[in-house]
């Protein structure tokens, strides 16, 4: 028997039953689109999260946040204060800690330069910021230890803020006002782009931590600190030590909860893992349900089709089709429908992923694997869904079918 003309015939049958084919196609389309989309976006988002985490925390850093509770819980009234001195003491006491970096940020501050104004985040940093964050300057220089010690009125400027205030002019050496504090721009930050939270990290000023705390925010405790551990294998044990020492310094009795919060790479990995579980288990489950629904629709519609086309089946048997030729034809027809849906779904999923990626600055690789998987799945579902109608068609007695 010739499979190619048979396939042609199958495609023609699909074209004849447009509405029917459309519904079968739809299930697989939704399923495969969801699958492709999820995998593409999931991969991109995961990569984004991991690179951001790596940049912010690194594989060997411990973040100490003042205040207890969860990371997203916000400051609480009984939050223990975290001072630069005690973090310095802990860092000095633990040889595993290579350097540490204070954390304090003013989320939105008005910045002026002559007539030009901008709203920007102001980040406090030590002279070690360049090493601690892995982000340097493209022009000028990072402020030094004496500048931090005397709360120098200097700032490093991100590219977005620089553009807003200076246009094409060179900002280095110019004077800006944060609130009513005059600062001299001493350098331009390396471009960073958008982080995992969708924040533009180039709309930023970095100033000495002391300048931020004393001159701009008027606070005397840190929001947190980042401790870099030289040996990645010793991060978790160092975190245990940090916790013990902080509890001791804060004079917390054993029944009291921490009044600070520690974030370690292991914790972050667990969080990313949970996000990944949602993306890679739950959403593909939705895709699978859509595909199965498509398969069920395909099977029932093909049963209907077989019943309707008894005469045609009888005729084919009369001119020499074997039972398995008939079965093959039905399976081909079903698989052609689901494959069509799968192909449309893969295209839609890719297009959707690229659109989303463009909007959120995700780095989405073309999800070829997912698209192929979707095509294979929809074909397999077509074959499976076609099996029962095919068996029924093949079992038709030629004379009965012709009657």
């Amino acid at each position, binding site marked *: 028997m010739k499979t190619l003309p048979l396939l042609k015939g199958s495609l023609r049958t699909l074209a004849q039953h447009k509405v029917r084919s459309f519904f079968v196609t739809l299930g697989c389309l939704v399923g495969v689109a969801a699958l492709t989309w999820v995998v593409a976006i999931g991969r991109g988002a995961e990569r984004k999260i991991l690179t951001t985490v790596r940049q912010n925390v690194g594989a060997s850093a411990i973040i100490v946040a003042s205040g207890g509770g969860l990371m997203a819980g916000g400051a609480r009234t009984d939050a223990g204060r975290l001072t630069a001195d005690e973090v310095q003491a802990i860092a000095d006491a633990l040889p595993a800690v290579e350097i540490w970096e204070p954390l304090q940020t003013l989320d939105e501050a008005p910045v002026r330069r002559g007539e030009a104004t901008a709203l920007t985040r102001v980040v406090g940093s030590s002279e070690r910021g360049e090493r601690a964050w892995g982000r340097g300057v493209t022009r000028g220089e990072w402020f030094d230890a004496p500048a931090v010690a005397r709360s120098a009125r200097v700032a490093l400027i991100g590219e977005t803020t620089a553009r807003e205030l200076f246009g094409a002019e060179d900002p280095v050496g110019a004077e800006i006002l944060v609130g009513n504090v005059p600062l001299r721009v001493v350098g331009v930050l390396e471009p960073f782009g958008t982080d995992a939270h969708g924040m533009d990290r180039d709309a930023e000023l970095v100033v000495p931590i002391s300048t931020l705390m004393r001159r701009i925010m008027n606070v005397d405790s840190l929001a947190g600190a980042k401790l870099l551990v030289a040996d990645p294998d010793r991060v978790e044990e160092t975190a245990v030590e940090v916790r013990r020492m902080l509890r001791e310094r804060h004079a917390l009795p054993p029944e009291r909860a921490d009044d600070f919060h520690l974030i370690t790479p292991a914790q972050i990995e667990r969080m990313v893992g949970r996000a990944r579980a949602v993306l890679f288990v739950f959403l593909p489950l939705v895709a699978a349900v859509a595909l199965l629904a498509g398969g069920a629709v395909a099977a029932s519609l093909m049963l209907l089709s077989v019943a309707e086309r008894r005469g045609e089946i009888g005729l084919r048997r009369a001119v*020499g089709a074997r039972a398995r030729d008939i079965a093959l034809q039905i399976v081909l027809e079903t698989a052609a429908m689901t494959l069509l849906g799968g192909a449309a779904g893969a295209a839609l999923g890719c297009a959707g992923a690229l659109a989303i990626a463009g909007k959120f600055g995700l780095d989405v690789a073309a999800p070829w694997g997912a698209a192929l998987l979707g095509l294979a799945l929809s074909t397999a579902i077509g074959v499976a869904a076609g099996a029962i109608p095919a068996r029924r068609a093949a079992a038709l007695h*030629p004379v009965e079918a012709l009657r």
Partner: protein
Amino acid sequence: MIELEKVDKAYARPGAAPVEALRDVSLGIGRGELIAIVGASGSGKSTLLNVLGLLDVPTRGAYRLDGADVSALDPEAQARLRNERIGFVFQAFRLLPRASALENVELPLLYSDRPRTNGLARAALEGVGLADRVHHRPAELSGGQQQRVAIARALVNGPDLLLADEPTGNLDLRSALEILAIFQRLQADGRTIVVVTHDAAVAAHCGRIARLEVGRIVSDAPVSAPRDAAAALRDLPLDIAAQPAQASQAGREAP
């Protein structure tokens, strides 16, 4: 070529006595014969044709095709024989409505094991005088033309046995005569043709007539002077041909 020996065919009916559609039918048909099977409705004509065409298996008895018992063959082998050696023509044409004449004729080639089938379908259509209708759909053809497409389909694989169940039942006189002329020409080519009909005028074009009554063959005799369908066509006045007359009535008037 064909030998039926004491063939019975009973249709089982759940909760009732089986219908004995064929009883003790013995029939020999030689190569190149054009034989008519006649009989009242329900006498078993179609059943007999289905048995001959390997679409149905007898309950009892033997069916030999060229000496080989084929009723015991497995369904696959029977399908091969249907494809290669047997052509079927049905009363209701049974063309695929959405396929062109050519595609309809190509249908048996789909299931053929022959390596080269190019041009066969077109040639078969030319053979029934439809060279200019290959791309027409059934709905765009007259009844007679549709039946000729069906005949071309039956012939496309070059079978030596052609089985036709009431092939002219739905046709006007001219179309019926055209079909019969094709059958007579095929017979002259050496093909064996079995035509089921309840129409005596159609049977009169065959070389032999077998009569069935309630599943039994009650008479089987050669026709002394079969009518010539081609000649009748030539003599047919055009106005009569235009009317959808019954082949039986007009056929009887033909010389």
